[in-house]
């Protein structure tokens, strides 16, 4: 018996060790950091405890900018990407010819390096001394004057960020929704067809409720993912996001930790905990709403 216990723990030991050092300890530590005022990472000293770090970041214009950017990004991209994914998956499930080809193409962005492809988006949207860029060329066809989406007005930069984010998150959503749609038994559709149900009513009354668990799963994970946006912004606007007014909360955390403005783990911790609190709240709200609407 003793021996058996020992063996079980032995098998678990590596995992426990790694999780302990890199998950559990940091988790406790981050809360400690966030309440330690004036922590100095070189001397590892601080001069007091309290809510000063929170108060500091909440008054930091860069953090407020990041907060605003993140919220806009979440509010725009989560519903938009979910709706587009729903439409595309529904379209995919209603066709036979070329379906696999389309599925493969749509999944492609999932396996690409966000940073690398972000550069392509940058040159597509960019306007500089040498060229107006391709997007502006197309806009020009509609009689619009060229805009610099990368280094220009705030709304234009936000547009590119949202567009790229949707482009990046769609493959996963399309994949999940397509397989959810495929799992709805043909019999239900036949039953509805016999009764003369019109396509829109079939979609609203049968398809949507049947895939609602997956849909809500995507919405919840979509919110969480969008709140953590960062590398998409770096890909488009470079590492100095504060200067570009395009920083996100996660970006703020990293900037506080490292780089030109870095060296403040306490502020970073406070910001990370604020982010965590926001995500937790939104997730709880999502779960409550989904309890009400998700069937089964």
């Amino acid at each position: 018996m003793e021996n058996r216990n020992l063996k079980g723990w032995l098998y678990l030991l590596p995992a426990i060790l790694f999780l302990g050092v890199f998950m559990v300890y940091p988790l406790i530590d981050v809360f400690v950091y966030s309440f330690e005022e004036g922590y100095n990472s070189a001397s590892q000293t601080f001069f007091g405890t309290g809510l000063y770090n929170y108060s500091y970041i909440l008054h930091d214009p860069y953090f407020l900018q990041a907060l605003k950017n993140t919220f806009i990004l979440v509010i725009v991209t989560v519903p938009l990407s979910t709706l587009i994914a729903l439409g595309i998956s529904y379209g995919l499930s209603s066709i036979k010819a070329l379906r696999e080809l389309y599925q493969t193409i749509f999944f492609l962005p999932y396996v690409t390096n966000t940073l690398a492809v972000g550069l392509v988006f940058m040159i597509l949207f960019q306007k500089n001394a040498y060229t107006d860029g391709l997007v502006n060329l197309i806009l020009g066809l509609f009689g619009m004057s060229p805009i610099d989406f990368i280094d220009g007005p705030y709304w234009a930069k936000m547009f590119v960020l949202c567009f790229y984010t949707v482009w990046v998150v769609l493959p996963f959503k399309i994949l999940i929704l397509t397989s959810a749609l495929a799992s709805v038994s043909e019999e239900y559709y036949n039953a509805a067809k016999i009764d003369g149900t019109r396509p829109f009513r079939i979609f609203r009354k049968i398809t949507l409720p049947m895939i609602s668990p997956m849909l809500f799963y995507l919405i919840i994970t979509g919110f969480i993912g969008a709140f953590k946006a960062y590398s998409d912004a770096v890909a488009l606007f470079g590492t100095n996001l504060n200067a570009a007014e395009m920083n996100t909360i996660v970006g703020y955390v990293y900037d506080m930790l490292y780089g030109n403005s870095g060296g403040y783990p306490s502020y970073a911790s406070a910001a990370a905990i604020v982010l965590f609190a926001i995500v937790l709240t939104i997730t709880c709200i999502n779960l409550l709403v989904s309890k009400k609407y998700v069937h089964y």
Partner: protein
Amino acid sequence: MNRDIIRSERAAKARSTVRSTVTYIILTVWAIIVLFPFYWMILTSVKEYASYNSEYIPKFFTLSPTLENYSSAFTAVPLAKYFLNTVIFTVATTALMLIVIIPAAFAFSRLNFRGRDAVFTLFLSLMMIPYELVVITNYTTITNLDLRNTFTGLILPSVTSVFYIYLLKENFAQIPDELYYAAKVDGTKDLKYLFKVMLPICRPTVITITVLKVIECWNSYVWPRLVTDDPNYYLVSNGIQEIRENGFGRENIPAMMAAVVVISAPLIILFLIFRKKIMEGVARGGTKG
């Protein structure tokens, strides 16, 4: 009355033709939006530097493709080094992860010992912890251990994943107990049973986990950026960022695109080969990163 029905029948048929045409148009439009950046990246990477810069209105094709940009991508910046670093990082992280999670999943699903369920619950609750919360202390830890700019520092924090342990444990648990007892009766050791019976049966899940981890490693950016500032240890994501900000100079876009193609190619090729497996795996694994 019958004629009415037939007429409405015809209308319905016309409607369904219109519907499928519209469906194909929408799907094709999105397919173009997805594919176009890839096309543009390859196209730009084979345009001559001079001709690219002289195109105020970008051209959709080039008549004189050149591979020159690729050679400058490898010579002007240490792209091969970034590439090699990423391969080392990806292989080592994935291998270490498998070594850590397989015994853990085996213990949770197969061995009975005191405290097992309590630990498992604890593990599950760790799944909800966002990466951003722990990365701060990990950064300090690695810095204090003097592991910045080392592979050890890059790799260690990402060798465990509670989610993958959970995924594998669920799969292990589906193997009927009888198999284990039969093996025990024959005097099979636990480790042999794990490697000769459980792993082969659960191969699809192991492959899924491996592929997901490889994708994650290849594209990882945040952690490498935090713990490396020596270009000798840059991974491709950091490398491309470095190239963009200090590399060829902002104007040599064709060379930059060549680097982007080189960085993107491995995963795309991997995807095209294992298309079905990867898509099934992602659908089953259910999360990104």
